[in-house]
């Protein structure tokens, strides 16, 4: 059974059809790539899956439940976490605190005990900080745990976004251009990190990426979007040789 099932997904903004009739399935434990030229509608797909936009028509099922039109925070609670193309951390919070916010989904103590700073709230906050610290170690950010996240260099901010998303303990992780702006070495590190998230932590990953080498080496299944429509779907070897994909990226010979 598939973990995420997207069927006939369509969204229109006024007269513009940004995404049209998109259908794909992601199996548990799959590394799934979503590619396409700029403006193809990839991030819009992410926004529909995570509940930022409500699709005009079509359905999204996650883990057997229909989630079309469910509010953002509830979808996060069901087990879908994401990163953002244009990094969206909480700049004033420290690296550790950013990850703690990601873990707040599982927070149990009441508002009253937080306001009164009762032992239950203190204990839970300490436990959440300890959990967050462990996650920072996984992504090799433990040394900058108490730095304001706005002061981090770019590559570390990208990694912190992944750590924060991981803190929600998702089943499905959506990464929006995680390798953008990274140098070749950083990209290799990132690819290994993403593979580890799947192999060691059992996450299913849906990734948007422009870097073809990155996607081809990482993903097992790839979906190609152009002008909001599917032009190809399949394993990397097949995508690489698909004439429509080549045309979309390089143009047709004249």
């Amino acid at each position: 059974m598939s973990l995420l099932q997207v069927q006939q997904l369509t969204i229109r903004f006024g007269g513009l059809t940004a995404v049209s009739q998109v259908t794909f399935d992601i199996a548990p434990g799959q590394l799934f790539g979503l590619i396409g030229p700029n403006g193809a509608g990839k991030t819009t797909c992410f926004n529909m899956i995570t509940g930022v936009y409500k699709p005009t028509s079509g359905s999204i099922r996650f883990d057997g439940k229909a989630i079309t039109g469910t509010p953002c925070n509830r979808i996060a609670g069901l087990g879908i976490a994401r990163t953002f193309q244009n990094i969206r951390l909480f700049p004033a919070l420290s690296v550790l605190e950013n990850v703690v916010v990601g873990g707040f989904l599982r927070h149990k103590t009441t508002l009253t005990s937080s306001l009164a700073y009762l032992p239950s709230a203190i204990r839970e906050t300490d436990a959440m900080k300890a959990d967050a610290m462990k996650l920072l170690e996984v992504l090799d950010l433990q040394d900058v745990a108490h730095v304001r996240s706005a002061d981090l260099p770019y590559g570390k901010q990208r990694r912190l976004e992944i750590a924060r998303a991981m803190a929600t303990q998702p089943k499905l992780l959506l990464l929006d251009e995680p390798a953008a702006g990274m140098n070749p070495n950083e990209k290799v590190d990132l690819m290994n990190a993403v593979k580890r998230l799947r192999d060691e932590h059992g996450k299913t990953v849906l990734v948007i990426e422009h870097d073809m080498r990155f996607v081809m080496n990482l993903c097992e299944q790839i979906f190609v979007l152009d002008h909001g429509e599917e032009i190809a779907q399949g394993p990397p070897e097949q995508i690489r040789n698909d004439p429509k994909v080549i045309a979309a990226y390089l143009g047709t010979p004249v």
Partner: protein
Amino acid sequence: MFWPKRIASIAIGIGACFLIQAVAGKMFDFYGLRLVALAGLYVTLAVSLNLINGITGQFSIGHAAFYQIGAYFTGYLSIHYFAAGAGKVGGPVVWLIAMMIVGALGATIAGFVVGLPSLRLRGDYLAIVTLGFGEILRIIVQNQEALGGAYAMKDIPTIQSLWLVWALAFLCIAVCRNLLKTARGLTFVAVREDEVASAAMGVDVTKVKITAFMVGSAFAGAAGALLAHYEGLITPQTFAMDVSFIILTMVVLGGTGSITGSVVAAIFLSYLPEYLRNLKAPDGGTLYVTGATCLQWMLTIFAAVVLIRWISRSLQFPLVQRLGLYAAAVVGALVIGKLLGFGVNLISGLAAIQIDAGQLRMAIFAVALISVMLIRPQGIFAHHELSLTWLRGLVSRKRPAEVSA
């Protein structure tokens, strides 16, 4: 180990409130005591608005409305039921505490109602709605004969309890600080920083915003109850738009999001106009200043602001050297002002204009605010809290670049 510590700190807090009452009672007359009480109320108002505005980032400028609800609601109850009820509950102070709770509840409900539009509106638009709410409420009250109408709600039983005023302020500070120390508080800041990212991380943005509005208004409502019983008479003008703006100014001047900043700015801004109101000449008569002196001082302040801004922007030195430079800039500005003063005195007629210094108080107030915002737009404390870690960090400040390298 937790409870003994907690009980001790509560005892110290209440002890401090009684100490304030005792010391102020010895030092001040009726007028001075009223200022100490008002300062305490403004601390509560500023810190509670800071929760909504600074910590959660919901730009509300109708805080006086919640203050008003607390005052009128409990004032009305006290006029009608104090005589019968106070004896039963165990004295006026207990009655006042009960009224604070009732006022807080009333304001909390209003906070919930005003919090609702904050789910759809952001920034300026939310500000307009909250401002409108405050004005609508004031005008409704102004037209209710049962509430005293435009004249005043009078004959509220006066229960003046200075320690209770400051106990509320301390409670408000403690609650906000507690919240910020827990994981829950971080989600409030996260909502301020980025709503979309907060929601994507599973934070219930709706709940956070409404909670901030409800908790913030509860404290304003309790403060209103204290005001009504301190003054014994409240008018709709007590809660006019300018009161909302003064509270907002306190939050912004202190540093949006900083509890310490709100407290310091609240005390400073509630005292400054009263100090200026009472300026007297050495012989005790009205203090007059000439138009030329006014102009000279305006030029001096202008020079000081320009110099300090230039130093803070273009020169990077450790704190101690920078403070030295600022002091030098102020001295320089005084000299420039003095020199320009000779020129100003030559302008015919200016030296002959006599202005009552007391009349200038709002102008001085405004100039002080504008100067602070020009020199330090992030507010006096920025987003910092008064703590040992922060003070230590100040002395050996590292630039962000060094941290990330």
